[in-house]
């Protein structure tokens, strides 16, 4: 098994996806190369991926799907001739419920088929927007899961189904959970706390509701 991991984050090595990739790769002993979509031409990277029997594309979820730069790589990928190549995906998203990525997951499984690759599955982890900013101990569980995922991948050449299932929780938000989160937001103790902190750090808090492209008649 020779593995190519493509970090599909537009933030390259500075983003959350890079952290996911690093911890996943910690568990892998097989030859494994990591490349960043943000720093390379999409066509070159798509062509380069043909040299590997196993390709893993890791990415942040943007608008229920892959970032534009990942779709540009996909557009350049050619179907495998002998069907011996395999492809899997790791998706991390800001929204906490993994069901938000179901469009992407459905698309990626279909894409594998279209490319004549064996589909290895898609790992989805929500609530990951702040991973790069959180203290190490708050990410401990996530990092352990990613390492286990890597180790199992190294052993079996596939993602561990139980780990995938655990990481995908919560799949949906219950009515009660939504009410609670909405209430926390109202009191400024939910995820709005994170945004407030970041906006204040950047001295942009007073401008947070700016509407710079409102039309001149003021109707939007």
């Amino acid at each position, binding site marked *: 098994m020779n593995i190519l991991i493509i970090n599909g984050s537009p933030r390259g090595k500075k983003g959350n996806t890079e952290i996911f990739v690093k911890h996943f790769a910690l568990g892998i002993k097989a030859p494994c190369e990591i490349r960043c979509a943000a720093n390379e031409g999409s066509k070159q990277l798509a062509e380069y991926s043909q040299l590997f029997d196993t390709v893993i594309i890791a990415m942040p979820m943007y*608008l229920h799907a892959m970032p534009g730069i990942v779709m540009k790589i996909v557009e350049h990928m050619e179907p495998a001739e002998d069907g011996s190549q395999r492809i899997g995906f790791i998706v991390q998203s800001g929204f906490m419920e993994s069901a938000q990525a179901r469009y992407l997951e459905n698309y990626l499984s279909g894409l594998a088929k279209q490319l004549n690759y064996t589909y290895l599955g898609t790992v989805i982890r929500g609530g990951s927007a702040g991973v790069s900013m959180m203290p190490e101990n708050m990410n401990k569980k996530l990092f352990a899961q990613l390492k286990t995922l890597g180790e199992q991948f190294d052993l079996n050449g596939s993602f561990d189904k139980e780990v995938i299932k655990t990481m995908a929780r919560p799949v949906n*938000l219950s009515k009660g959970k939504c009410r609670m989160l*909405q209430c926390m*937001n109202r009191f400024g103790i939910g995820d709005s706390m994170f945004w407030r902190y970041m906006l204040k750090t950047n001295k942009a808090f007073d401008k947070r509701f700016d509407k710079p492209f409102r039309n001149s008649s003021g109707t939007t």
Partner: protein
Amino acid sequence: MKTVVIREFGDVAVPCQYELDLRITAPRDCTGCWSCWLKTPGRCIHKDLDAFYRAYLAADKVIILANVSKGFVSGDMKTLFDRMIPLFLPYITYKSGESMHVPRYDKYPAVEAYYQGVFSSEQEKKLYEDYIHRVFYQFHSKCDVVEPIAQFSLKEALR
């Protein structure tokens, strides 16, 4: 009625106040920097879509003529969607029973999408249509129409 056209194919002129032809001006990719949320709220670090943002927000209707690329929206179209995130706040509302971004503006245009291209299965076609509906649901726009381009030509002919 103010109309904006986002186009990836075709030469038939559609009467509109503003047209973004992705074949001529492919938008610069989102860098994921979050400046549009956290440093210069509402403004992207790239300036290439500023006129588009203004026209989009002033429009009553947006007509999208989109390609099907590997069974999905094209990379350029996806980049455009990514680059529309400055029009929304980073804050999340759970009122609809799931996570959704809070609108930054009071009003967003209605969207109609017409596509050109082939799908390998009915399932793939449904996913493409559902995905575009979903994007504009997230973007707080009414989007009742995601149809093959033939439907657009037919409607135009009947007008």
